[in-house]
């Protein structure tokens, strides 16, 4: 049976989230670093990378997430496949820059009446953009894979984010799986009962999508009422729900974050 594309997307999304929890429990370098130090280091790395415009330096900093992933026992195949999608999309949308940037020609082709010339400047801009996107996505992926969502919530709480917002993140994350499961059931039921032309947009498919959303909305709303009442019955108070503390920063955490920030800052200044 052919699995519909939308269903596949949902399953893939949920599976990738489950994988996060598995990897954050491994004993690797990044897993032993304090989440606050990791957050500061990786956010700084991403921001500083925006100021590095040399292709060779960008290629050099791309080694950092790769080395950190290796030392954190994150399977390289999974890490590379997970970080490939967004840079590929970025490469596709920046393809025209190869031909639109004026400069020294490195390749020319005539396709009918169209004369396409790739310039060195265009190629450099294209590569700088794509490599930078990969670096940012891989750094962020490394942070999430090595930390896990539960510790990220604790980190938010320790950073004085309002408890309501932390609770909303927590509920959204937890019930995302339930929503995905319900959406799957509805989509499979619909696929089993109807024929849909998936090649082009049509009014019926949009009406179906609206109806599915409405059905899911009603189910979710009714569940939310049950969950809320159950939580209240067990003494839930939003103010007391996120009294979570993070372990104190150690010297190695400070060293990890500061060494990365200094190294990246020096590269940006060169």
């Amino acid at each position, binding site marked *: 049976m052919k699995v519909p*594309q*939308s269903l596949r*997307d*949902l399953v893939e*999304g949920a599976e*990738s*989230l489950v994988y*996060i929890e598995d990897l954050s429990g491994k004993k690797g370098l990044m897993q032993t670093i304090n989440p606050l130090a990791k957050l500061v280091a990786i*956010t700084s790395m*991403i*921001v500083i990378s925006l100021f590095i415009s040399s292709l060779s330096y960008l290629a050099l900093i791309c080694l950092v997430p790769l080395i950190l992933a290796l030392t954190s026992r994150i399977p390289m195949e999974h890490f590379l496949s*997970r970080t490939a*999608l*967004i840079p590929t999309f970025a490469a596709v949308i920046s393809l025209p*820059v190869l031909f*639109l940037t004026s400069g020294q020609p490195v390749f020319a082709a005539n396709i009918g009446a169209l004369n396409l010339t790739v310039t060195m400047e265009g190629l450099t801009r294209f590569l700088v953009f794509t490599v930078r996107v990969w670096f*940012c*996505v891989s750094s*962020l*992926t490394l942070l*999430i894979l090595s930390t896990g*969502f539960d510790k*990220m919530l604790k980190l938010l709480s320790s950073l004085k984010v309002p408890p309501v*917002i932390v*609770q*909303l*993140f927590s*509920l*959204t*994350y*937890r*019930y*995302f799986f*339930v*929503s*995905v499961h319900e*959406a799957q059931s509805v989509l499979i039921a619909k696929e089993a009962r109807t024929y849909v032309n*998936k*090649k*082009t*947009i049509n*009014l019926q*498919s*949009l*009406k179906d*999508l*609206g*109806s*599915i*959303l*409405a*059905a*899911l*909305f*009603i189910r*979710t*709303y009714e*569940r*939310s009422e049950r*969950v809320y009442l159950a939580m209240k019955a067990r003494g839930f108070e939003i103010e007391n729900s996120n009294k979570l503390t993070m372990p104190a920063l150690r010297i190695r955490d400070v060293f990890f974050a500061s060494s990365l920030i200094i190294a990246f800052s020096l590269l940006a200044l060169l």
Partner: protein
Amino acid sequence: MGLLTALFFAAMLLNFPLIGGTTAHLLGGASIGLILGPFAGCISVTIILVLQALLFGDGGLTTLGANVLNMGIIGVFIPCVLFFVMNKLFKPKANGTLYAMIFISAFVGDVFAAIAAGTELGLSAPTFQYGLSIAVPVMALNHSIIGVAEGIVTIVLIGTLLKLRPDVLEKSPILSKLPFFQNKTEPKEE
């Protein structure tokens, strides 16, 4: 609100086919805004965007502010304000007028969010390779197609909820202002 945010997060993964074999997904700003209200809707979309950036690498951290402005503020507030104004002007009693109002709100919200994104991209030139003259029309045109789809889906969603669970929509800060709910609640207040 957390559970509904999770639902809309999952709903954003549902693709529908577009022209030329490409697919698109809902922005959801109009649906979330009209049902939860603009302020709760804005928080809801922001949480979805943060989770998308952290869990899928989609959107990213450095562009989070721009994404929140485009989809969380413009994409939610414009449909809500438009719907609110049209409701005051037309006071819909028939479904046709109500559905037209929902469609216009969702469509304009999508297109304005896209125009805002196009403007930000255009202003990023020369770092971004296309200037305002290219980025804005391309984004507006592309998202006007998605806007039509979003409008139809939002009509069906809210229309179905009005038929099956009007009590849910009665709690909405925007939809509760509809004459249907106002006329129903007035006698109770007296």
